[in-house]
Protein backbone atom coordinates (compact mmCIF):
# COMPACT_ATOMS: atom_id res chain seq x y z
CA UNK A 1 0.00 0.00 0.00
CA UNK A 2 1.50 3.29 -0.98
CA UNK A 3 1.28 6.33 1.25
CA UNK A 4 -1.29 7.87 -1.05
CA UNK A 5 -3.51 4.83 -0.84
CA UNK A 6 -3.17 4.75 2.92
CA UNK A 7 -4.18 8.34 3.25
CA UNK A 8 -7.27 7.69 1.20
CA UNK A 9 -8.34 4.99 3.66
CA UNK A 10 -8.24 7.31 6.65
CA UNK A 11 -11.55 8.50 8.00
CA UNK A 12 -10.41 12.12 7.96
CA UNK A 13 -9.71 12.00 4.24
CA UNK A 14 -12.97 10.27 3.57
CA UNK A 15 -14.88 12.80 5.57
CA UNK A 16 -13.51 15.52 3.31
CA UNK A 17 -13.38 13.90 -0.09
CA UNK A 18 -16.12 11.51 -0.88
CA UNK A 19 -15.27 10.33 -4.32
CA UNK A 20 -12.68 8.00 -5.67
CA UNK A 21 -9.66 8.87 -7.72
CA UNK A 22 -10.20 6.59 -10.63
CA UNK A 23 -10.83 8.59 -13.81
CA UNK A 24 -14.41 7.45 -14.19
CA UNK A 25 -17.19 9.75 -15.31
CA UNK A 26 -18.87 9.31 -11.96
CA UNK A 27 -15.84 10.52 -10.05
CA UNK A 28 -15.35 13.40 -12.46
CA UNK A 29 -18.93 14.45 -11.94
CA UNK A 30 -18.61 14.16 -8.18
CA UNK A 31 -15.56 16.42 -8.20
CA UNK A 32 -17.73 19.14 -9.65
CA UNK A 33 -20.88 18.40 -7.64
CA UNK A 34 -19.28 18.18 -4.28
CA UNK A 35 -17.13 21.27 -4.38
CA UNK A 36 -18.66 24.58 -3.52
CA UNK A 37 -16.26 26.42 -5.73
CA UNK A 38 -16.31 24.10 -8.70
CA UNK A 39 -20.01 23.54 -8.82
CA UNK A 40 -20.52 26.78 -10.68
CA UNK A 41 -19.38 24.67 -13.61
CA UNK A 42 -21.64 22.16 -15.32
CA UNK A 43 -20.47 18.59 -15.15
CA UNK A 44 -20.14 18.41 -18.87
CA UNK A 45 -19.30 21.20 -21.24
CA UNK A 46 -19.44 21.50 -24.97
CA UNK A 47 -16.03 20.74 -26.30
CA UNK A 48 -15.93 23.67 -28.66
CA UNK A 49 -16.38 26.18 -25.82
CA UNK A 50 -12.94 25.16 -24.64
CA UNK A 51 -11.33 26.55 -27.75
CA UNK A 52 -9.41 29.74 -27.08
CA UNK A 53 -11.12 31.75 -29.81
CA UNK A 54 -14.53 30.79 -28.53
CA UNK A 55 -14.45 33.36 -25.70
CA UNK A 56 -10.80 34.37 -25.63
CA UNK A 57 -11.10 33.45 -21.93
CA UNK A 58 -11.54 37.12 -21.15
CA UNK A 59 -13.97 36.52 -18.29
CA UNK A 60 -11.55 34.03 -16.82
CA UNK A 61 -8.67 36.47 -17.10
CA UNK A 62 -10.76 39.08 -15.29
CA UNK A 63 -11.62 36.57 -12.56
CA UNK A 64 -7.98 35.52 -12.27
CA UNK A 65 -6.95 39.17 -11.82
CA UNK A 66 -9.67 39.51 -9.21
CA UNK A 67 -8.29 36.56 -7.26
CA UNK A 68 -4.75 37.98 -7.45
CA UNK A 69 -6.06 41.36 -6.33
CA UNK A 70 -7.81 39.85 -3.35
CA UNK A 71 -4.72 37.94 -2.23
CA UNK A 72 -2.23 40.78 -2.71
CA UNK A 73 -4.72 43.31 -1.39
CA UNK A 74 -5.23 41.45 1.87
CA UNK A 75 -1.46 41.12 2.30
CA UNK A 76 -1.03 44.84 1.61
CA UNK A 77 -3.68 45.68 4.18
CA UNK A 78 -1.39 44.29 6.87
CA UNK A 79 1.06 47.11 6.15
CA UNK A 80 -1.23 50.02 5.44
CA UNK A 81 -2.67 52.78 7.60
CA UNK A 82 -5.30 55.02 6.00
CA UNK A 83 -3.97 58.20 7.60
CA UNK A 84 -1.89 61.17 6.57
CA UNK A 85 1.10 61.10 6.27
CA UNK A 86 1.47 57.48 7.40
CA UNK A 87 -0.21 56.19 4.21
CA UNK A 88 2.60 57.53 2.08
CA UNK A 89 5.23 56.39 4.52
CA UNK A 90 3.75 52.92 4.34
CA UNK A 91 4.39 52.94 0.60
CA UNK A 92 8.02 53.74 1.38
CA UNK A 93 8.12 51.06 4.02
CA UNK A 94 6.82 48.54 1.49
CA UNK A 95 9.61 49.61 -0.78
CA UNK A 96 12.42 49.65 1.73
CA UNK A 97 11.66 47.29 4.56
CA UNK A 98 8.78 44.89 3.95
CA UNK A 99 9.96 41.62 2.42
CA UNK A 100 8.66 41.44 -1.15
CA UNK A 101 6.74 44.65 -0.49
CA UNK A 102 7.57 46.18 -3.85
CA UNK A 103 6.58 42.98 -5.61
CA UNK A 104 3.25 42.87 -3.79
CA UNK A 105 2.44 46.45 -4.59
CA UNK A 106 3.48 46.15 -8.22
CA UNK A 107 1.47 42.97 -8.62
CA UNK A 108 -1.58 44.63 -7.11
CA UNK A 109 -1.23 47.67 -9.31
CA UNK A 110 -0.67 45.85 -12.58
CA UNK A 111 -3.39 43.29 -11.81
CA UNK A 112 -5.80 46.17 -11.26
CA UNK A 113 -4.98 47.60 -14.67
CA UNK A 114 -5.32 44.15 -16.25
CA UNK A 115 -8.70 43.71 -14.60
CA UNK A 116 -10.04 46.97 -16.01
CA UNK A 117 -8.77 46.17 -19.49
CA UNK A 118 -9.90 42.56 -19.56
CA UNK A 119 -13.33 43.41 -18.13
CA UNK A 120 -13.82 45.98 -20.86
CA UNK A 121 -12.62 43.61 -23.57
CA UNK A 122 -14.87 40.92 -22.09
CA UNK A 123 -17.81 43.26 -22.49
CA UNK A 124 -16.88 43.94 -26.11
CA UNK A 125 -16.46 40.25 -26.82
CA UNK A 126 -19.89 39.50 -25.39
CA UNK A 127 -21.40 42.29 -27.41
CA UNK A 128 -19.89 41.27 -30.72
CA UNK A 129 -20.82 37.67 -30.07
CA UNK A 130 -24.36 38.87 -29.29
CA UNK A 131 -24.22 36.91 -26.12
CA UNK A 132 -26.43 39.46 -24.39
CA UNK A 133 -29.47 38.06 -26.13
CA UNK A 134 -32.16 36.23 -24.20
CA UNK A 135 -31.87 34.51 -21.85
CA UNK A 136 -28.69 36.35 -20.93
CA UNK A 137 -30.11 39.87 -20.77
CA UNK A 138 -29.88 40.21 -17.03
CA UNK A 139 -26.39 38.78 -16.87
CA UNK A 140 -25.33 41.51 -19.28
CA UNK A 141 -26.72 44.10 -16.89
CA UNK A 142 -24.86 42.49 -14.00
CA UNK A 143 -21.77 42.48 -16.16
CA UNK A 144 -22.02 46.19 -16.88
CA UNK A 145 -22.52 46.80 -13.16
CA UNK A 146 -19.43 44.72 -12.45
CA UNK A 147 -17.46 46.82 -14.94
CA UNK A 148 -18.53 49.96 -13.12
CA UNK A 149 -17.60 48.43 -9.77
CA UNK A 150 -14.25 47.45 -11.22
CA UNK A 151 -13.65 51.04 -12.22
CA UNK A 152 -14.77 52.12 -8.75
CA UNK A 153 -12.35 49.73 -7.09
CA UNK A 154 -9.52 50.88 -9.28
CA UNK A 155 -10.35 54.51 -8.67
CA UNK A 156 -10.71 54.23 -4.89
CA UNK A 157 -7.45 52.29 -4.77
CA UNK A 158 -5.76 55.01 -6.78
CA UNK A 159 -5.91 57.44 -3.83
CA UNK A 160 -4.52 55.13 -1.20
CA UNK A 161 -0.76 55.65 -1.80
CA UNK A 162 -1.35 59.34 -1.05
CA UNK A 163 1.28 60.57 -3.47
CA UNK A 164 0.99 63.44 -5.91
CA UNK A 165 -0.33 61.15 -8.63
CA UNK A 166 -3.05 59.82 -6.32
CA UNK A 167 -4.02 63.14 -4.85
CA UNK A 168 -4.34 65.01 -8.10
CA UNK A 169 -5.86 62.10 -10.00
CA UNK A 170 -8.62 61.90 -7.44
CA UNK A 171 -8.98 65.68 -7.24
CA UNK A 172 -9.49 65.86 -11.00
CA UNK A 173 -11.94 62.97 -10.98
CA UNK A 174 -14.05 64.23 -8.12
CA UNK A 175 -14.14 67.67 -9.68
CA UNK A 176 -15.87 66.06 -12.67
CA UNK A 177 -18.51 64.65 -10.32
CA UNK A 178 -19.08 68.12 -8.97
CA UNK A 179 -20.44 69.17 -12.36
CA UNK A 180 -23.54 66.99 -12.03
CA UNK A 181 -26.52 69.33 -11.77
CA UNK A 182 -28.16 69.81 -8.37
CA UNK A 183 -26.60 66.87 -6.55
CA UNK A 184 -23.05 67.05 -7.89
CA UNK A 185 -21.67 69.00 -4.94
CA UNK A 186 -23.47 66.74 -2.51
CA UNK A 187 -22.18 63.55 -4.10
CA UNK A 188 -18.68 64.91 -4.03
CA UNK A 189 -19.00 65.90 -0.39
CA UNK A 190 -20.38 62.47 0.37
CA UNK A 191 -17.48 60.75 -1.42
CA UNK A 192 -14.74 62.87 0.07
CA UNK A 193 -16.17 63.50 3.51
CA UNK A 194 -15.43 67.16 2.96
CA UNK A 195 -14.92 69.75 0.29
CA UNK A 196 -11.33 68.83 -0.51
CA UNK A 197 -9.37 65.63 -0.85
CA UNK A 198 -8.21 65.17 2.73
CA UNK A 199 -7.65 62.52 5.34
CA UNK A 200 -11.41 61.96 5.49
CA UNK A 201 -11.45 61.18 1.80
CA UNK A 202 -8.58 58.77 2.31
CA UNK A 203 -10.51 56.94 5.00
CA UNK A 204 -13.68 56.77 2.90
CA UNK A 205 -11.86 55.54 -0.14
CA UNK A 206 -10.08 52.99 2.01
CA UNK A 207 -13.32 51.59 3.39
CA UNK A 208 -14.90 51.59 -0.06
CA UNK A 209 -11.84 49.95 -1.56
CA UNK A 210 -11.29 47.30 1.08
CA UNK A 211 -14.78 46.51 2.32
CA UNK A 212 -17.78 47.88 0.48
CA UNK A 213 -16.84 47.43 -3.14
CA UNK A 214 -15.11 44.04 -2.72
CA UNK A 215 -18.18 42.66 -0.92
CA UNK A 216 -20.47 43.92 -3.67
CA UNK A 217 -18.04 42.58 -6.24
CA UNK A 218 -17.97 39.10 -4.71
CA UNK A 219 -21.73 39.07 -4.50
CA UNK A 220 -22.35 40.19 -8.07
CA UNK A 221 -19.50 38.11 -9.45
CA UNK A 222 -20.99 35.01 -7.89
CA UNK A 223 -24.36 35.80 -9.44
CA UNK A 224 -22.68 36.57 -12.75
CA UNK A 225 -20.77 33.29 -12.96
CA UNK A 226 -23.66 31.26 -11.63
CA UNK A 227 -25.94 32.75 -14.23
CA UNK A 228 -23.51 31.95 -17.00
CA UNK A 229 -24.12 28.34 -16.20
CA UNK A 230 -27.85 28.76 -15.60
CA UNK A 231 -28.17 30.45 -18.96
CA UNK A 232 -26.56 27.55 -20.74
CA UNK A 233 -22.84 28.02 -20.45
CA UNK A 234 -20.61 30.40 -22.22
CA UNK A 235 -21.80 31.61 -25.56
CA UNK A 236 -19.24 31.98 -28.26
CA UNK A 237 -19.55 33.49 -31.73
CA UNK A 238 -23.08 33.45 -33.14
CA UNK A 239 -23.48 30.43 -35.35
CA UNK A 240 -23.89 31.31 -38.95
CA UNK A 241 -26.37 29.67 -41.11
CA UNK A 242 -24.62 28.77 -44.32
CA UNK A 243 -27.46 30.23 -46.33
CA UNK A 244 -28.70 33.68 -45.43
CA UNK A 245 -32.24 32.83 -46.37
CA UNK A 246 -32.28 29.60 -44.45
CA UNK A 247 -33.23 29.13 -40.91
CA UNK A 248 -31.94 26.65 -38.43
CA UNK A 249 -33.25 25.38 -35.19
CA UNK A 250 -30.27 26.86 -33.40
CA UNK A 251 -31.28 30.36 -34.20
CA UNK A 252 -34.86 29.72 -33.26
CA UNK A 253 -34.22 28.13 -29.96
CA UNK A 254 -32.89 30.14 -27.08
CA UNK A 255 -29.31 29.06 -26.76
CA UNK A 256 -29.69 27.85 -23.21
CA UNK A 257 -32.42 25.41 -23.84
CA UNK A 258 -30.44 23.61 -26.41
CA UNK A 259 -27.78 22.33 -24.07
CA UNK A 260 -30.23 21.52 -21.36
CA UNK A 261 -31.98 19.22 -23.77
CA UNK A 262 -28.85 17.50 -24.85
CA UNK A 263 -27.70 16.42 -21.48
CA UNK A 264 -25.80 19.31 -19.90
CA UNK A 265 -25.70 19.47 -16.14
CA UNK A 266 -28.09 22.34 -15.95
CA UNK A 267 -30.73 20.87 -13.72
CA UNK A 268 -28.36 19.09 -11.44
CA UNK A 269 -27.83 21.66 -8.75
Amino acid sequence: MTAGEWIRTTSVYRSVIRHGVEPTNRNRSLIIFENLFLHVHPVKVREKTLRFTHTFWLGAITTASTIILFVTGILLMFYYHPSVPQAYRDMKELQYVVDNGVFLRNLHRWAAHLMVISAFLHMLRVFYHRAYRPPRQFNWVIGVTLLIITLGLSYTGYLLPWDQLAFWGVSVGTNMVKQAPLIGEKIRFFLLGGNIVSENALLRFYVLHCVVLPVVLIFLLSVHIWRVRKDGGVQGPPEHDPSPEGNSFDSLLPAGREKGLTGGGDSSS
Partner: protein
Amino acid sequence: MSNIHLVESNDPLATPWHVALIRPDQRPSARESEERYVTAFPHLIVREVILFQLVVIALSLTAIFFDAPLESIANPVETPNPAKAPWYFLGLQELLHYFPPVVAGVLLPGLVVIALLVIPYARINLEAGPLWNAEWRWKFAIITSIVAALTILFAAFQCWPVVIPTMLIGSAALASKRGRPRWLWEVTLPEWIMTWFVVVATTLTLIGTFFRGPGWSWVWPWTAVPRA
Protein backbone atom coordinates in the same frame (compact mmCIF):
# COMPACT_ATOMS: atom_id res chain seq x y z
CA MET B 1 -42.13 35.00 -35.70
CA SER B 2 -45.52 34.57 -34.20
CA ASN B 3 -45.92 31.30 -36.03
CA ILE B 4 -43.38 29.64 -33.78
CA HIS B 5 -44.45 28.33 -30.43
CA LEU B 6 -42.15 26.78 -27.92
CA VAL B 7 -43.52 24.01 -25.83
CA GLU B 8 -42.70 24.65 -22.21
CA SER B 9 -42.84 21.45 -20.22
CA ASN B 10 -40.67 19.47 -17.90
CA ASP B 11 -42.22 16.18 -18.86
CA PRO B 12 -39.84 14.46 -21.20
CA LEU B 13 -42.59 12.17 -22.50
CA ALA B 14 -44.79 15.11 -23.37
CA THR B 15 -42.00 16.92 -25.11
CA PRO B 16 -40.67 15.55 -28.35
CA TRP B 17 -36.98 16.00 -28.90
CA HIS B 18 -37.31 18.33 -31.81
CA VAL B 19 -40.27 20.41 -32.78
CA ALA B 20 -39.90 22.20 -36.06
CA LEU B 21 -42.39 24.56 -37.44
CA ILE B 22 -41.60 25.35 -40.98
CA ARG B 23 -42.67 28.50 -42.65
CA PRO B 24 -44.27 27.92 -45.99
CA ASP B 25 -41.86 30.26 -47.74
CA GLN B 26 -38.78 28.41 -46.55
CA ARG B 27 -37.39 25.01 -47.13
CA PRO B 28 -36.95 22.66 -44.22
CA SER B 29 -33.38 21.98 -43.24
CA ALA B 30 -32.34 20.31 -40.02
CA ARG B 31 -28.69 20.67 -39.32
CA GLU B 32 -27.18 17.71 -37.64
CA SER B 33 -25.87 18.83 -34.30
CA GLU B 34 -22.59 17.08 -33.72
CA GLU B 35 -21.84 18.77 -30.44
CA ARG B 36 -19.28 16.84 -28.48
CA TYR B 37 -19.41 17.05 -24.74
CA VAL B 38 -16.54 16.54 -22.34
CA THR B 39 -16.46 16.42 -18.58
CA ALA B 40 -15.64 19.71 -16.91
CA PHE B 41 -13.02 17.95 -14.84
CA PRO B 42 -10.32 17.79 -15.95
CA HIS B 43 -10.84 19.42 -19.34
CA LEU B 44 -12.19 22.76 -18.23
CA ILE B 45 -10.73 22.93 -14.74
CA VAL B 46 -7.17 22.22 -15.86
CA ARG B 47 -7.47 24.87 -18.54
CA GLU B 48 -8.72 27.30 -15.97
CA VAL B 49 -5.81 26.55 -13.66
CA ILE B 50 -3.34 26.92 -16.52
CA LEU B 51 -4.92 30.22 -17.46
CA PHE B 52 -4.69 31.41 -13.88
CA GLN B 53 -1.06 30.44 -13.76
CA LEU B 54 -0.36 32.20 -17.02
CA VAL B 55 -2.02 35.37 -15.74
CA VAL B 56 0.03 35.22 -12.55
CA ILE B 57 3.21 34.60 -14.55
CA ALA B 58 2.52 37.51 -16.88
CA LEU B 59 1.67 39.87 -14.03
CA SER B 60 4.63 38.73 -11.92
CA LEU B 61 7.03 39.33 -14.75
CA THR B 62 5.55 42.77 -15.23
CA ALA B 63 5.79 43.39 -11.49
CA ILE B 64 9.42 42.29 -11.41
CA PHE B 65 10.51 44.48 -14.28
CA PHE B 66 8.27 47.51 -13.93
CA ASP B 67 7.73 49.32 -10.66
CA ALA B 68 4.35 50.81 -9.90
CA PRO B 69 4.60 54.61 -10.04
CA LEU B 70 5.06 56.46 -6.76
CA GLU B 71 5.63 60.18 -6.76
CA SER B 72 6.39 62.44 -3.84
CA ILE B 73 3.93 62.81 -1.01
CA ALA B 74 0.63 64.50 -1.79
CA ASN B 75 0.96 68.24 -1.61
CA PRO B 76 -2.26 70.22 -2.01
CA VAL B 77 -0.39 73.43 -2.82
CA GLU B 78 1.86 72.01 -5.51
CA THR B 79 -0.40 71.36 -8.48
CA PRO B 80 1.25 69.26 -11.14
CA ASN B 81 0.76 70.52 -14.65
CA PRO B 82 -1.17 68.81 -16.09
CA ALA B 83 -3.04 67.10 -13.26
CA LYS B 84 -4.26 63.87 -14.80
CA ALA B 85 -6.96 61.44 -13.65
CA PRO B 86 -6.30 57.67 -13.79
CA TRP B 87 -5.86 56.52 -17.38
CA TYR B 88 -9.35 55.03 -17.77
CA PHE B 89 -10.85 58.44 -17.07
CA LEU B 90 -8.52 60.33 -19.38
CA GLY B 91 -10.98 59.96 -22.26
CA LEU B 92 -13.48 61.90 -20.18
CA GLN B 93 -10.86 64.42 -19.16
CA GLU B 94 -10.00 64.88 -22.82
CA LEU B 95 -13.69 65.53 -23.57
CA LEU B 96 -13.65 68.11 -20.81
CA HIS B 97 -11.18 69.99 -22.96
CA TYR B 98 -13.88 70.45 -25.64
CA PHE B 99 -17.23 70.47 -23.87
CA PRO B 100 -18.71 72.22 -20.88
CA PRO B 101 -18.09 70.21 -17.70
CA VAL B 102 -21.74 69.20 -17.35
CA VAL B 103 -21.74 67.62 -20.79
CA ALA B 104 -18.36 65.94 -20.66
CA GLY B 105 -18.30 64.99 -17.00
CA VAL B 106 -21.90 63.96 -16.40
CA LEU B 107 -24.11 63.83 -19.49
CA LEU B 108 -21.91 61.80 -21.85
CA PRO B 109 -20.68 59.19 -19.33
CA GLY B 110 -24.25 58.90 -18.00
CA LEU B 111 -25.57 58.29 -21.50
CA VAL B 112 -22.89 55.68 -22.14
CA VAL B 113 -23.74 53.76 -18.98
CA ILE B 114 -27.47 53.85 -19.70
CA ALA B 115 -26.89 52.81 -23.31
CA LEU B 116 -24.79 49.85 -22.17
CA LEU B 117 -27.38 48.76 -19.62
CA VAL B 118 -30.30 48.73 -22.02
CA ILE B 119 -28.52 46.89 -24.82
CA PRO B 120 -30.16 43.48 -24.21
CA TYR B 121 -33.63 45.03 -23.90
CA ALA B 122 -33.58 47.07 -27.07
CA ARG B 123 -35.36 45.49 -30.01
CA ILE B 124 -32.85 47.00 -32.36
CA ASN B 125 -30.16 44.84 -30.82
CA LEU B 126 -32.16 41.67 -30.59
CA GLU B 127 -33.54 41.73 -34.09
CA ALA B 128 -30.60 43.27 -35.85
CA GLY B 129 -29.59 41.65 -39.05
CA PRO B 130 -26.99 42.87 -41.48
CA LEU B 131 -27.38 46.60 -41.90
CA TRP B 132 -28.25 46.65 -45.59
CA ASN B 133 -30.50 43.66 -45.45
CA ALA B 134 -33.67 45.56 -46.27
CA GLU B 135 -35.10 49.05 -46.63
CA TRP B 136 -31.65 50.26 -47.54
CA ARG B 137 -32.67 53.50 -49.24
CA TRP B 138 -34.42 54.71 -46.18
CA LYS B 139 -31.60 53.54 -43.90
CA PHE B 140 -28.99 55.11 -46.13
CA ALA B 141 -30.65 58.50 -45.81
CA ILE B 142 -31.06 58.23 -42.06
CA ILE B 143 -27.51 57.02 -41.42
CA THR B 144 -25.99 59.61 -43.71
CA SER B 145 -27.83 62.38 -41.97
CA ILE B 146 -26.97 61.07 -38.46
CA VAL B 147 -23.28 60.79 -39.33
CA ALA B 148 -23.36 64.26 -40.85
CA ALA B 149 -25.18 65.68 -37.83
CA LEU B 150 -22.71 64.12 -35.39
CA THR B 151 -19.78 65.34 -37.47
CA ILE B 152 -21.12 68.88 -37.52
CA LEU B 153 -22.00 68.80 -33.82
CA PHE B 154 -18.55 67.66 -32.73
CA ALA B 155 -16.85 69.85 -35.29
CA ALA B 156 -18.69 72.82 -33.80
CA PHE B 157 -16.83 72.12 -30.56
CA GLN B 158 -13.64 71.50 -32.56
CA CYS B 159 -13.53 68.04 -31.07
CA TRP B 160 -11.49 66.48 -33.86
CA PRO B 161 -10.64 63.26 -31.95
CA VAL B 162 -14.37 62.48 -32.21
CA VAL B 163 -15.05 63.97 -35.62
CA ILE B 164 -12.42 61.96 -37.45
CA PRO B 165 -13.45 58.50 -36.13
CA THR B 166 -17.10 59.43 -36.71
CA MET B 167 -16.42 60.23 -40.32
CA LEU B 168 -14.26 57.14 -40.82
CA ILE B 169 -16.70 54.70 -39.22
CA GLY B 170 -19.66 56.43 -40.84
CA SER B 171 -18.16 56.14 -44.30
CA ALA B 172 -17.15 52.54 -43.64
CA ALA B 173 -20.74 51.75 -42.65
CA LEU B 174 -22.07 53.41 -45.77
CA ALA B 175 -19.42 51.75 -47.93
CA SER B 176 -20.35 48.33 -46.61
CA LYS B 177 -23.53 48.58 -48.68
CA ARG B 178 -21.48 47.46 -51.66
CA GLY B 179 -21.55 43.98 -50.21
CA ARG B 180 -17.86 43.38 -50.48
CA PRO B 181 -16.11 42.25 -48.42
CA ARG B 182 -18.78 40.00 -47.19
CA TRP B 183 -17.99 40.19 -43.48
CA LEU B 184 -18.31 43.95 -43.61
CA TRP B 185 -21.73 43.67 -45.18
CA GLU B 186 -22.84 41.41 -42.34
CA VAL B 187 -22.11 43.96 -39.62
CA THR B 188 -25.29 45.07 -37.89
CA LEU B 189 -26.25 48.58 -36.95
CA PRO B 190 -25.66 48.06 -33.19
CA GLU B 191 -22.23 46.73 -34.04
CA TRP B 192 -21.46 49.79 -36.08
CA ILE B 193 -22.51 51.99 -33.18
CA MET B 194 -20.47 50.02 -30.65
CA THR B 195 -17.45 50.08 -32.94
CA TRP B 196 -17.81 53.82 -33.23
CA PHE B 197 -18.01 54.14 -29.44
CA VAL B 198 -14.96 51.94 -28.87
CA VAL B 199 -12.86 53.74 -31.45
CA VAL B 200 -13.83 57.16 -30.09
CA ALA B 201 -13.25 56.10 -26.47
CA THR B 202 -9.87 54.55 -27.31
CA THR B 203 -8.78 57.56 -29.34
CA LEU B 204 -9.73 59.97 -26.57
CA THR B 205 -8.04 57.86 -23.90
CA LEU B 206 -4.85 57.48 -25.92
CA ILE B 207 -4.71 61.20 -26.63
CA GLY B 208 -5.37 62.06 -22.99
CA THR B 209 -2.73 59.62 -21.80
CA PHE B 210 0.11 60.19 -24.20
CA PHE B 211 -0.42 63.43 -26.08
CA ARG B 212 -1.29 65.94 -23.40
CA GLY B 213 1.25 68.13 -21.63
CA PRO B 214 1.28 71.28 -19.49
CA GLY B 215 -1.96 73.24 -19.72
CA TRP B 216 -3.50 70.26 -21.56
CA SER B 217 -1.55 71.34 -24.62
CA TRP B 218 -0.67 68.92 -27.38
CA VAL B 219 2.72 67.24 -26.92
CA TRP B 220 4.35 64.31 -28.64
CA PRO B 221 5.13 61.45 -26.31
CA TRP B 222 8.74 61.36 -27.48
CA THR B 223 9.30 65.06 -26.83
CA ALA B 224 7.53 65.09 -23.47
CA VAL B 225 9.66 66.62 -20.73
CA PRO B 226 9.50 65.14 -17.23
CA ARG B 227 6.62 66.62 -15.33
CA ALA B 228 7.53 69.73 -13.44
